[in-house]
């Protein structure tokens, strides 16, 4: 161990050396670091391939939600108004993203894999009202895409709903 004054000078040398190194900062808006494949971002609602919505309006997601940010109002499917394959469908499906904590419990609670958490995280708005996502917004493809890291890099199981649907 060297005496204390020598160590102090060594510290100065260390900080001075950093001046000539390239900073390791990732410049965010220009460079978007790929998110982990199972990153929990903005929600998505899904459809079957024939166009019917997977959601049957059971409200289990709303019950599981610890932040109480999901609102589901169900309505009956009819012969001239078939939205989902079940008896009922979600007439109103809203997620208040300003309250959502992105825990993914809704995803776990859903019996039909109708709701999943996507990878999109750039969801800031100027108004709180704009953060209430309606069913149309959740069903549509997200406007902003985020880079997602290659799934093979990680030991990530392929979720059921991506394998069979």
């Amino acid at each position, binding site marked *: 161990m060297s005496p204390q004054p020598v160590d*102090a000078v060594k*510290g*100065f040398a*260390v*900080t*001075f050396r*950093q*001046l000539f*190194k390239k*900073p*390791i*900062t990732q*410049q965010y808006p220009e460079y978007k670091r790929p998110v982990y494949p199972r990153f929990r971002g903005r929600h998505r609602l899904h459809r079957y391939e024939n166009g019917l919505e997977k959601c049957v309006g059971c409200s289990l997601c709303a019950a599981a939600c610890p932040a109480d940010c999901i609102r589901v109002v169900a309505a009956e499917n009819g012969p001239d108004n078939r939205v989902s394959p079940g008896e009922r469908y979600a007439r109103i499906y809203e997620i208040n993203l300003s309250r959502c904590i992105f825990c993914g419990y809704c995803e776990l609670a859903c019996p039909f894999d109708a709701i999943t958490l996507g990878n999109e995280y750039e969801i800031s708005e100027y108004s709180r009202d704009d953060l209430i996502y309606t069913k149309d917004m959740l069903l549509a493809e997200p406007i902003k895409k985020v880079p997602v890291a290659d799934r093979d890099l990680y030991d990530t199981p392929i979720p059921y709903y991506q394998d069979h649907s």
Partner: protein
Amino acid sequence: MVSPVGASEASDNGRGRQVTEPWWISLIKAAVIVNLVMVAFAYTTWLERKLLGRMQNRYGPNRAGPYGLLQPFADLIKLIRKESFFPIAAREPLYIAAPIISMFTALAAFAVIPFGAGWKIWHWHVNGEIANVSIALILIFALGSIGVYGPIVGGWASESKYSLLGSMRTCAQLVSYEVSLALSVLGVVLMGQSLNLVDIVNKQGATIWFFIPQFAGLLVFFFAMIAETSRPPFDLPEADTELVAGYHTEYGGMRWGLFQTAEYINLITLSGLAVTLFFGGWRGPYAPLGPLWFVLKVFIFVSVFIWIRASVPRLRYDQLMRFGWKVLLPVATINAVITALLVVWI
């Protein structure tokens, strides 16, 4: 038409030159210098953030303008536009006056620091400082002592226990280190045989820059200066990471900004004083570049302060007090006594 004063006038004492400058030139100079100091302050904050960033492997500000050069102005606009709230129990006149006191004393102290040899512009003589005061050094320390009232009054008038405790901490530190700061320059005064900064610089030009014979004095001045401007590692008054902000806990917006400005301008002023006292002021290899040499030396000083901030952890309070009273003060005293003896006998 601009020509520097030659070496023949260097031995001329300051009072002789003072009378040749009309008052309105001083006024113009004052306005220019105050604004230059403010700009220097703005870019000191920029430089600090940039250098600190690079020393910590970050970029520092790089969004506002190229290389983040507009960052100080963005900060200024943000601070000015902030709501200027204050505690309901605050003693209002004093609460408002405190940052103004800090700011005023910080800016006023720069008036006596010479930054050039003086020039002949058309048929007027322009001095290289705003005010040529024969007791400039005492004036600077007097203003520094008044400046301590900023934190004291501000902390007390905020009517908050955190502010009060913070201001007590600040005062104890500033008052302790002021003693060493004043004593450390005694050697320079003895060698320069004047309290006039212009005379001291001219004396250094005639003999040798005082940092060589007064190295102990320089070290004490340097450490006391860091403490006096409450820079890391002596930044106990603020201690961003561990204590509630200190005396300016209850300040926000531009009032807080004034305290910060005062701190940085104090840093620039004291760097200028250190350059003047120990490193030959505006003197350099090529005389016509006088003010540039001064600016360069101050720049190096400020950069070293930032470097220290990036490298040294903060002192504990008892370490701070012990260092001030048991190390700096004896060293400064012995240095002054030895210098006095040498000046008398040699």
